């Protein structure tokens, strides 16, 4: 990773955590068994200077993601690799039931991921391949609008739609509001279902909602999101600042025709697909 990019990611992550972690760090470390001791300090150390520096950018950072589906066609194992990386990074329980499952990033047929796109005379590639579904980190997120406790909110400095698992009362209104089915609820204690425990990220308790966080905790350390990193050599997922004209993601969006999920709803998703 070149220096500039690495620095950007750190900035983005630090700003992300400057918002979420200030109160969260205390909470996380208060339960040593489940907490990560490292990243909180990193975020606090760098958050202040970098965050204030970045604020000068008039449009602000808005993190986004592009899935180059052409690279996934015929390679479902690539999707699984990204999904597994996410599961591992975030202690996502593996519950073998459609009713109670928890997923942050998953694969589904085109018709499910893009139900409002025509399915008539679909091309072979869209017909025969799964697509990646993930939280869109919308600019106008309905989940944030409906949450009665501000337990889910937009981090102004990065555009990430984040969750406070300690604030959430589990009313599931956000799941009703989300038109992308991106949110999962812990119907029971998820901890016994975590296959491989990662001390770097908190586990959740029953009765709260969770979803993709664009790996805010990894960005703070200068790392890319887990799914992006897992497919680094293929370059199938690009992550970066949509508002920075010099970013790789902005370049890809300029050069390729992309689609978004349910654009008619006015949610302004930050996740794009090259199909």
């Amino acid at each position: 990773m070149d220096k500039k990019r690495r620095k950007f990611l750190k900035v983005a992550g630090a700003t992300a955590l400057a918002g979420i972690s200030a109160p969260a760090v205390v909470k996380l470390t208060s339960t040593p068994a489940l907490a990560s001791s490292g990243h909180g300090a990193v975020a606090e150390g760098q958050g202040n200077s970098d965050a204030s520096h970045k604020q000068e950018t008039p449009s602000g950072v808005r993190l986004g993601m592009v899935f180059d589906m052409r690279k996934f066609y015929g390679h479902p194992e690539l999707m699984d690799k990204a999904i597994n990386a996410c599961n591992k990074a975030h202690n996502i329980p593996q519950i073998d039931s459609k009713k109670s499952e928890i997923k942050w990033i998953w694969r589904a047929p085109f018709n499910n991921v893009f139900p409002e796109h025509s399915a008539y005379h679909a091309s072979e590639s869209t017909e025969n391949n799964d697509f990646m579904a993930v939280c869109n980190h919308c600019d106008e997120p309905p989940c944030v609008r409906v949450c009665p406790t501000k337990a889910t909110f937009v981090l102004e400095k990065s555009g990430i739609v984040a969750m406070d698992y300690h604030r959430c009362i589990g009313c599931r209104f956000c799941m009703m509001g989300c038109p992308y089915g991106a949110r999962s609820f812990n119907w029971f204690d998820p901890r016994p279902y975590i296959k491989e425990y990662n001390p770097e990220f908190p586990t959740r308790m029953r009765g709260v909602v969770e979803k993709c966080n664009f790996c805010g905790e990894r960005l703070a350390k200068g790392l890319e999101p887990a799914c992006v990193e897992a497919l680094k050599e293929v370059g199938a997922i690009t992550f970066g600042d949509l508002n920075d004209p010099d970013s790789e993601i902005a370049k890809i969006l300029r050069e390729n025709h992309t689609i978004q999920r349910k654009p008619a709803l006015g949610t302004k998703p930050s996740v794009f697909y090259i199909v």
Partner: protein
Amino acid sequence: MIEKVLKGNSRYWMWLAILGAFIAVGAICYIRQFNYGMGLTGMGRDLGWGLYISQFTFLVGVAAGGLMLVLPYYIHNYKVFGRITILGEFLAISAIVMCLLFIMVDIGQPLRALNMILHPTPNSMLFWDMCVLLGYLTLNIICGWVILTSERKQVKPPKWVYIFVYTSLPFAVSIHTVTAMLYCGLPGRHFWLTAITAPRFLASAFAAGPALIALACLIMKRFANFDAGKEAMNKLTTIIMYAALINAFFVCLEFFVGYYSNIPGHKHSLDYLFFGLEHHGHVYNNLVPFMWTSVFLCFGSLALFGYMKIAKVYTDTLMAIGCIAIFIALWLDKGLGFVMGGLAVSPLEEVVEYYPTANEIGITLGIWATGFFVLTMLYKIAVSVEHEVEGH
């Protein structure tokens, strides 16, 4: 006045004991759910709301329905409702108690419920719903209690209480409007995304609430020597008929919009509710019998009430049959179909059917029993005061 609930005949105690048994079962079921999590319900990732929220929605309507007695009496000075207006106010209290209990059992972290107040969020309709429900509950407690106390003392109610009475009128409308807004402002939920949701809710509420009050009157006439009067009962049927007709009209409009526009998203839920929805070779139709039962009960009771009006016959039995039919019809329509129908098709267009678990039904029955327990005690007070006044 509260001492009135402690004196009653054996029927009264038997009834409370039956309700108490249901409450006990519900409490045990809730303890199980509290300890294990919401996984004990039939709800799931794609069907995140179920019986609890649908009962909540229906009961907000029942609470708002009291307006149909309070408004004619206080605004139009319709004296015939003088004896039963208090029943409307007390019904509102017990219905809101049930609503709040249904919300509490529906949230995954009930111990954090105060976060709604500690972190008030005006952009969330749930926050406003809490505000208007608590407001309406308080108003009805004040109005009901003060007016009943005055009646007992044979004096006019103090003037200041009318401020609360008149405030409670728009509040009744607001509780159901805001409850409708929980649903009708969500992008990507086609069945709910319709501006007619709030008026439809109000129409069905103004039929279901009075129907329940009329039933309570019939029961109390039989067992508690309390007669609301034939004229009041007749007027109630008129109100119920108009409200139920308007509700049916709104439902028909939904059908027109869905099938004439031919937009799949608008048709899916109606298909699922009334005809069965085919998806990947499987037909999902577990609510179809309930919805058609609702249709037949609704039009059946309208026909019955119509016959009673035209032929000028009135018997308590016919009245009871009509009220039970319309109440069940509206419960199936709103307390079952509206929420499940809206959720049957997930945002990723998978079809999921909902089957509540025994534990969930136990909790639901327990809360209904709690509501009827509160209602019984409140009505006992109201009726005892009436008897006391008449005895003088």
